[in-house]
């Protein structure tokens, strides 16, 4: 229905998780738990970014489209658009 760009979400999310994963560790205050917190930040950033990236890449060049029932087509056609 709406054209979605690919570059914009990639830039936004890469920056977002990059800030958390790469810039975040520098901001953690010194203390006994500093190592653990840095590990958690980096691991979260890597896992969540990778997860989102795989999802968007999997939808980038679809090989087939959704198969809809005719009732769905009727109401989506007139409700969403």
């Amino acid at each position: 229905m709406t054209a979605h760009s690919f570059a914009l979400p990639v830039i936004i999310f890469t920056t977002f998780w990059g800030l958390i994963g790469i810039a975040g560790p520098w901001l953690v205050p010194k203390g006994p738990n500093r190592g653990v917190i840095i590990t958690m930040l980096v691991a979260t950033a890597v896992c969540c970014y990778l997860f989102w990236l795989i999802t968007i890449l999997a939808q980038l060049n679809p090989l087939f489209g959704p198969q809809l029932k005719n009732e769905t087509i009727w109401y989506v056609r007139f409700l969403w658009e």
Partner: protein
Amino acid sequence: MGSMFRSEEVVLAQLFLPTASAYACVSQLGELGLVEFRDLNASVSAFQRRFVADVRRCEELEKTFTFLQEEVRRAGLPLPRPEGALPAPPPRDLLHIQEETERLAQELRGVRGNHQALRAQLHQLQLHAAVLGHGHGHGPLLAATPMDGPSDLTPLLQPPGTPHRDLRVNFVAGAVEPGKAAALERLLWRACRGFLIASFRETERQLEDPVTGEPAMWMTFLISYWGEQIGRKVHKITDCFHCHVFPFPEEEAARRVALEQLQQQSLELREVLRETELFLSQVLARVQRLLPTWQVQVRKVKAVYLALNQCSVSATHKCLIAEGWCATRDLPRLQEALRNSSMEEGVSPVVHCIPSRDMPPTLIRTSRFTAGFQGIVDAYGVGRYQEVNPAPYTIITFPFLFAVMFGDVGHGLLMFLFALAMVLAENRPAVKAAQNEIWRTFFGGRYLLLLMGLFSVYTGFVYNECFSRAMTIFPSGWSVAAMANQSGWSDEFLAQNPLLMLVPNTTGVFLGPYPFGIDPIWSLAVNHLSFLNSFKMKMSVILGVTHMTFGVFLGVFNHVPPLPLPTGISASATACCWRRCLSWCFCSASSATWSSSSSSSGCASPRPPPPGPPASSSTSSTCSCSAAAPPTRRSSRARRWCRRYWWSWPWLWCPSCCWAHPCSCTGGTGATPRGPAAHCRRTRLSSWTLRTETRRRPRAPGSPRSWCSPRCSCTRPSTPSSSAWAASPTRPPTCASGP
């Protein structure tokens, strides 16, 4: 990295404790938890050690405590949890505790005995009163005169002419337990039929059984009989049934007097009983107050003496020598603790670090947050000394992988809120003291649940599922109207075709990937599983390979400090790199399918032959037209694939003797592997390694040729000392590989 990357550095410390202050020193060390003592008297039995008398004293005290605890529990009183720091008391205080405990136990036993006796007495009085009351109702009828009785009660079957010599009616009155009343009645009828009248009646109210305390309705009976022999029989029968028989005065006035006396007695008895119970409750209250503290203290005293038993006595008998593992970081604290606890004695203990060949224990300090995750990792196997600890990474990867499987915003939010409630209430005493096992399981994993809920919310957004319904945060990237217009889907056409597919190649149908997550159109599609399954399977492989590579990368650090780097790499490189490259080859192939152009030339896009089972189902489902591709296309596809993935060739053609199990990475340097590594070496070696290993080792003469099944081609290696093959000689090892 923090202290959780590896286990801490631990050193063997020898402590010279002067005999006078040994107890205090060990007690202080126990409070601080700095040292793990080693048993220096392992060859000595438990009964020959130095402090065995003290240990026995503590154990007897604990037995008395159990008795006291049982009494308190029987009275229905709760035992409060001990509060505050309770260090082990010095030996003279222990004597005081012992005396006090003995006195309390004796008092309690005496009072209990008295209480029981008084209740039994009261029970008897009550029964007697009930029996007399029984007679009261029937009194006028049964106050017999010698003449009246037999004439009314002449039995029908009495043989005529028998002289009624003894016409006096006698009474036996008593009480019998309710269960036996019917049997008693029957037996009386069978034995003395015709010569007695028995009347049974229930007591008016329930009486408490003195032993068990259960209320029960007793049956009182009044037997009127005549004849000496009958009387003897009746007495024998009542004795047999353990009935309580009471004297039954015939005149009503006498009965009334007796009843009044009984009532007076029972009133007095109740007073005494009340006083006894008051005293009992006072004693129990004292026990309730003192017992929890004592239990903790005596347990600590016993632990101190058990630790002292592990020390060896020096030749001059002036000091005890203790050996224990202590973290290097804690050595100053250890010295200060020893100094403080022996300040009164004047002689200070000495700490001396000695080198050791034994592997030190693994010490990882955890906070209440990290303790749960470390516990999960330790359940798989505790790492060796200074081995890389995977626990800090599992703080994120466990919840994340759970969330990949769970993936729902609504349910994830509920889980997060439940865990948040537990975390915020964790310091409440009611929550801490709860004993329910199921609750303790959940409470122990509250931080894990918190993170699992949080990640599930995120993956729920990515999967676009909230309580299993899709959300349209952004408008969908698929246009149904465009497809309908382009393909001329009129209403009649739609009515005739129940299912229609959107083709992404058509102009204007697919307008771009959904920026965050899965497009909501898929939740309306009938074939949503075809897309989602392929997506999720490829994602699982990529995530899995990433995690495993990270694990292997961490494993390199196990070899880096103790060994020079090249040996470490040669041990793991060939084995692991082969597998890694194979997996990464597959991952990049998956990515290539995503980056290829869409479906009109999609069937012509290079598709690599699936290297493993997970790929085949997904690739077969993604393009249905691949089967129809002409042969020329396939060969050109193959050529294109070869050109694209040329970098994976060297690894594909690596000699297969490098193909060993990944577990051999950690043990490849020849150090004896322990724990899970050894287990997997023992049971999961591939057939290749079996054959190459046996070819390398010469077979000693006399060892059996083959203990395995006839079909197996391996031979048992010669040296039983080779650790990976260790098996008892009586049982032949099962061959790890099939034919």
